[in-house]
């Protein structure tokens, strides 16, 4: 679904860009999740909440979660996933903050994804240091970002919506060297 307007507006253009003489090193695009949020647990309830998130992701395959702080998870997926979480979260244990509108998610995919992201983020993208199905919180100068790695060559970058266009431009700029495609 999504009645949400993309933060990119007319700025997103399909095509192949940069040095594609050897093919595109990566593909770039915006991806939409029907639901994005942050779950925060109070200190003594971290284990309880962790378990709850674990069982929700086990039950509803259309959602995923990754830890962005000792007591916080970024959660994303379908409304079903949200339904599997929200009602079960006791206010004594923690809270779910809806950020569906507040985040724009970019997906970068391809053999050069690590190289391109390494231009922007000071985190170790080597697979051993950043395994699949994990995520982390970091920043590119003023732009706060949460990065999730669904596959070895694929990353989802969650940025604050107001930064979306500025970051999209940055991402494209960084990818020009290896050539990129926007489908």
């Amino acid at each position, binding site marked *: 679904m999504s009645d949400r307007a993309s933060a990119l507006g007319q700025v997103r253009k399909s095509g192949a860009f940069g040095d594609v003489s050897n093919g595109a090193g990566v593909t770039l695009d915006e991806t939409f999740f029907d639901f994005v949020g942050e779950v925060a647990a109070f*200190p003594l309830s*971290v284990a309880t909440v962790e378990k709850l998130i674990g069982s929700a992701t086990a039950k509803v395959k259309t959602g995923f979660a990754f*830890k*962005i*702080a*000792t*007591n*916080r998870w970024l959660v994303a997926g379908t409304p079903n996933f949200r339904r599997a979480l929200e009602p079960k979260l006791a206010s004594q244990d923690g809270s779910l903050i809806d950020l569906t509108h507040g985040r724009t998610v970019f997906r970068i995919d391809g053999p050069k994804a690590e190289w391109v992201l390494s231009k922007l983020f*000071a*985190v170790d993208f080597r697979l051993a240091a950043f395994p699949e199905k994990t995520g*982390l*919180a*970091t*920043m590119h100068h003023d732009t*706060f970002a949460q990065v999730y790695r669904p596959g070895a060559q694929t990353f989802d970058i969650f940025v604050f919506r107001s930064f979306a266009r500025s970051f999209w431009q940055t991402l494209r700029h960084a990818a020009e060297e290896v050539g990129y495609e926007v489908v």
Partner: protein
Amino acid sequence: MRISCPHCGPRDLIEFTCQGDATRTRPEPASTDQDAWNKYIYERPNPRGWNREFWQHHGGCRAHLILERNTATHEIRDVKFARHGGAA
């Protein structure tokens, strides 16, 4: 400088902000002891050598940390969460 955040692992200095001396204690909220408040707000031991400091991992998990850091060498020998003396 790299700081090993107990949650995020080692990260670059740019992701952190130093938020001052962690050896000071804030007077009780209702305290009207002006000297104690003055000491808390304005006075610093500012040692050369090891000290305890608050840092926030603002560009990562946003946790506040307590660092044991050497102001003469920039060595860091301990990092823990500020909350509850290191617990999450």
